């Protein structure tokens, strides 16, 4: 069996995995998650038994890292919950309006489906394949996620 040089994997997939992770955990933690994803992959790499779908394999690892990050964040006490304003970001980011924090708080399947749909712009069939669920289940997860986001965003107003 032949595996491509690891460098090739980094070159081919780092940018899209970063996009995926930014969608999943937000820009601040995406870089760490990306690094951890590739380190985990590198550790396991020579033991892989087939090279059929390395991209999907990397996405699985990235998703695990992102889930861990979201869990860690949930455990961390946040001052915002105490009614204090979070410090203003140094560079104003028009997108940093809490929407991605809400995405991060969605149930795992909805979150993954929403990120793949809107950040990676994938078709439902492809999302389903990657998540190991049907096309229809992928569609349902996306719309359930959207419904929930819409409700929360509306509650804010």
């Amino acid at each position, binding site marked *: 069996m032949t595996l491509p040089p690891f460098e090739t994997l980094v070159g081919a997939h780092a940018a899209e995995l970063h996009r995926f992770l930014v969608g999943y955990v937000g820009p601040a933690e995406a870089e760490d998650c990306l690094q951890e994803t590739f*380190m985990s992959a590198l550790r396991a790499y020579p033991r892989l038994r087939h090279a059929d779908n390395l991209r999907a394999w990397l996405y699985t690892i990235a998703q695990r890292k992102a889930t861990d990050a979201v869990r860690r964040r949930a455990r961390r006490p946040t001052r915002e919950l105490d009614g204090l304003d979070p410090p203003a970001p140094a560079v104003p980011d028009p997108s940093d309006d809490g929407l991605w924090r809400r995405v991060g708080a969605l149930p795992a399947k909805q979150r993954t489906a929403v990120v793949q749909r809107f950040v990676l712009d994938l078709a439902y069939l492809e999302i389903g394949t990657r998540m190991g669920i049907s096309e229809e289940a992928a569609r349902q997860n996306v719309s359930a996620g959207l419904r929930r986001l819409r409700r929360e965003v509306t509650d804010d107003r």
Partner: protein
Amino acid sequence: MTDELERRLRDAPAASVPFDSAALRSALARRAADEGLLDIGYGTYDSPLGSLTVLVTPRGLVRLSYPGERIEDQLQELADRVSPRILRAPERTDDVRRQLDAYFAGQRSGFDVPIDWRLVRGFAGDVLRATARIPFGSVSSYREVATAAGSPNAYRAAGNALGSNPIPIVVPCHRVLHAGGGLGGYTGGIDRKRYLLRLEGVLDA
């Protein structure tokens, strides 16, 4: 409102966050080396003979290649034969690159870098090890290196081994000539062989 939410999901924040590929790569190379996971690190070196690719393992220099060989093919060959844990890691090749600098500047007459011989086996390995002992400024013949490798009659096989030397320049196969004085062949082309022999004072400048 549907469109508004979906638009925000699509546009942000991915599009607004630049991806720093160089930072990721250098962090990966450093961490992989620290954890003993960097089986092969590589970098390029701009020599007077073109851009060379320098590949090192924890054991030493495993491959040095002239331009013209596709880097992708070389990396794949190393992935298959040594390990797929390969990352671009120029700092791992600094020692070799510094010595090449000094060599091409005429300030160094030998290389003091450990060699990883994993890409050569059997008789070819014996030939190349014998070749590595030919001093700067000297030359040898195909028959002499075959003899030094233990098979005086196998000079054709010796020629083949030299022709597929994975570490030219440092393992100085350019110092092996035809017994009659002809230059013979060279993995990087005869002009490069001539250049190196001039640099070492064997041929007139």
